[in-house]
Structure formats: C-alpha cells, structure tokens
C-alpha cells in the first residue's frame, strides 16, 4: 500500500476521497511564466528576482524542454557561465505529472523525489501548469474545510431528526426517594443516545434532577415534562403546592427549608434551584399556594461556553 505519508487503507474516508477526488489541475498554478531556450541565465535570474520564482520552465511554444531552478542559477554564478543560454544548462530529465491525475500522485511524488515543483502536462503533452507543495496545502485545506463543514451539518441534521417534537412526561410523587432520579436518568439517556456533547447532557441532567428532587422533597407531588425540539430542551417542573413563600430566598445558595430527615438523606443543601439556574440558558419560576412551576431551557444546537 501507498503511504503518502498517511496510509491509504485505513485513513478516514473523507480524507482519502479528497486526495483522490482533487485533480492536479484543480490545485496547480496555471498562470506560468515561461521563457524560451535561448534566454540567458542572467535574464532568468533577473526574472526570478522580479517575480519571486524559484524555478522557470523552458519551453518551445507549449512544449516543455526543461527547467532552470535557483540551484542552476547559483551554479552558473559560481562557475561563471551566467551569460550562457538556458538550453545549455537546464535540467532536461524531468519528472512530470499529468493534469488529470489525482492529487495523491503529486503528494507521493513529493515524498519520493527531492524536487520542489513538478511541471504538469495535459494529454497532448503540452505544459499546462506547475505544482508545488504550497499548491497542495492550499487546495487540500480549502477542500477539507468544505468537507468538514458538510460533515458537521450532516451530524447536526442527524441529531435534529431524532428529537423533533419529542415530549416525555414523568409523574413525581411526594417523598418517593425510591423512584427519585428516574426522570432525569431517562432524559440523560435520551440525550446521550441522540449524540449530544457531554457538557450539554450534564447541564440537562443537573437541571432535571434538581427539579425532580425539589418535587420529591418539598411538594405534594407533581410532574416533570421534558420537551425536545431541534433547538432546545425545555424542562418544566409542575407541582401541586404548597408553594414557595419567598422565591428570592429559595434562589439563594445555601438557603433551605428541608428538615433533619431530608438532610440526613443528603438533600436540602440549598443548592437545588441555584444549580438549576446556573446550568439553564433560560430560567423562570412562578409559585403560589396551588403550586410551583419552574421552567428551565437548555439550548441544544450551539455548544455554549457555560461551564458547570
């Protein structure tokens, strides 16, 4: 198998597709500066300086005869033949690529030979371009960019399709520590199965669990409703009273009305609602003697920086 330098048998399909799909003609430089065989090396040296080139093809019309590189110019200066014409000193044994070849050929040629550029010919053996490592890097980066953007879109779409308009509701009973945590476990499993990032799942699990435990610990019973849409998860916690006397106090860290028994079970740290608030993108609470309603919204589409 070819290694170029990634191996071509178990690399990601999207990368392999790219290096076979991109043709050399898509990546190569087409606007070439060429000279004929009677041009002097001095003229070529000046041309290189002026156009910032490191190698110039010598042609007869569209027919490639050879290449003069910076190295050839240095040699010419060294040995005093800079005024000679190109045909006398150009490299004639050239390794060329064809414009219809996939870019993988060029990558492997650069791996195998020490040249900095390869001339590219079309089917009629006419010079149509030159390709350098820089050309390959640029075209690969641009195409990788497109390919990864497509992959991301596809992934988002897959997630969206699964969760459109899902509603799950769970009955939560007063002081039922046996079943407590069931709703949040289900919501967490659903999000995990749908492939959401761990950070989002953690936030959803925390919000759901705290709301669920609030109903178990503090209320006469109620329900948790989880509504999934492509954009967000809305968790609604409704209970049948007795209501929160002072909502501002309840939102304060460490403030709790839990009794000794509840605390002995590990609840009543006074962190429930503050935890929900801190993980939610939107949060609202209303309360009366008839019941309390808390709505926590967690955005699913964009990965927010919100840390928990």
């Amino acid at each position, binding site marked *: 198998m070819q290694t170029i330098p990634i191996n071509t048998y178990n690399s990601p399909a999207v990368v392999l597709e790219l290096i076979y799909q991109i043709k050399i003609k898509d990546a190569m430089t087409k606007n070439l500066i060429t000279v004929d065989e009677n041009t002097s090396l001095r003229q070529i040296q000046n041309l290189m300086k002026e156009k910032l080139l490191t190698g110039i093809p010598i042609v007869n019309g569209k027919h490639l005869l050879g290449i003069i590189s910076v190295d050839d110019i240095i040699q010419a200066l060294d040995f005093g033949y800079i005024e000679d014409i190109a045909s006398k000193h150009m490299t004639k044994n050239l390794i060329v690529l064809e414009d219809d070849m996939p870019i993988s050929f060029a990558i492997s040629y650069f791996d195998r030979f020490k040249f900095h550029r390869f001339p590219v010919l079309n089917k009629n053996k006419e010079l149509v371009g030159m390709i350098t490592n820089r050309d390959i890097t640029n075209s690969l980066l641009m195409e990788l960019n497109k390919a990864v953007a497509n992959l991301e879109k596809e992934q988002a779409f897959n997630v969206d399709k699964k969760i459109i308009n899902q509603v799950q509701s769970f009955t939560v009973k007063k002081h039922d520590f046996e079943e407590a945590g069931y709703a949040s*476990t289900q919501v967490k499993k659903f999000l995990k199965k749908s492939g959401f990032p*761990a950070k989002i799942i*953690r936030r959803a699990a*925390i919000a759901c669990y705290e709301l669920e*435990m609030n109903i178990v610990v503090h209320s006469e019973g109620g329900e948790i409703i989880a509504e999934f849409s492509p954009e967000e998860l809305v968790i609604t916690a409704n209970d049948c009273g007795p209501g929160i006397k002072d909502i501002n106090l309840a939102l304060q860290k460490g403030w709790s009305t839990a009794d000794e028994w509840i605390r002995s079970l*590990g609840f*009543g740290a006074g962190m429930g609602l503050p*935890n929900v608030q801190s993980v939610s993108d939107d949060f609202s609470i209303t309360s009366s003697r008839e019941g309390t309603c808390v709505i926590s919204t967690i955005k699913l589409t964009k990965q927010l920086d919100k840390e928990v």
Partner: protein
Amino acid sequence: MLTVEGLCELKGYKCALLGNAEDEVTNCYTGDLLSDVMGNAEEGSVLITIQAHKNTIAVASLVGIRAVVLCNGRTSPEDMRKAAKDEGVTIIETKDNQFSASWKIAGLLGLK
C-alpha cells in the same frame, strides 16, 4: 492511571460492588449534600461520602462519578448496590472518615 479497581486495593477498603473495573478515576470530591455534589463534582471523579443510599448512585450516574466511597463504616443497602450495578458505578466501603479517605485517595491521585 488510577482505576476504580486501584481504589479497592487501599488497605481497609472493601469493594461492595464493582462497576466497571477499568474506569479511570481522575479526580475526587468529598461531600454529603447531593446537590452540592451534583453541582461541583467533576466527571470521572470518585465521591467520598456517608450517604449510603440509592439516590447517591442516581447523582453519581448523572454527573459521571465512577466510584462512591462510603465512610465511617457505613454499608450499602441492597437497593443501592442494585442501582450501582445497573449504572456501572463502583461502591467501596471503609471505616475511615471522610478526611482520612480524602487524604489517602489524594495520594493515589498524586495530588499530595
């Protein structure tokens, strides 16, 4: 690398239920208030606590705690071990208090 199995090797620490032996433990949190644990424990942690009941496992599972160390000689009830088995959370029991347990586990984690 510290695994949950590695925690069980501490002297005087008894594995009451082995979840996923190979799970890596990368941090530790000590606390008895579950909301506090929920909001602050990092994923991949071991939880040191005296809360020997089923809800501890629910919290552990939700935030990605790999193992729960029950201190002061408290033992895990049957329903807690069943929940732990379902969720793949390891339960370890010890006579140590939370301070000693924290100190020893910090050592295992290389946090001394």
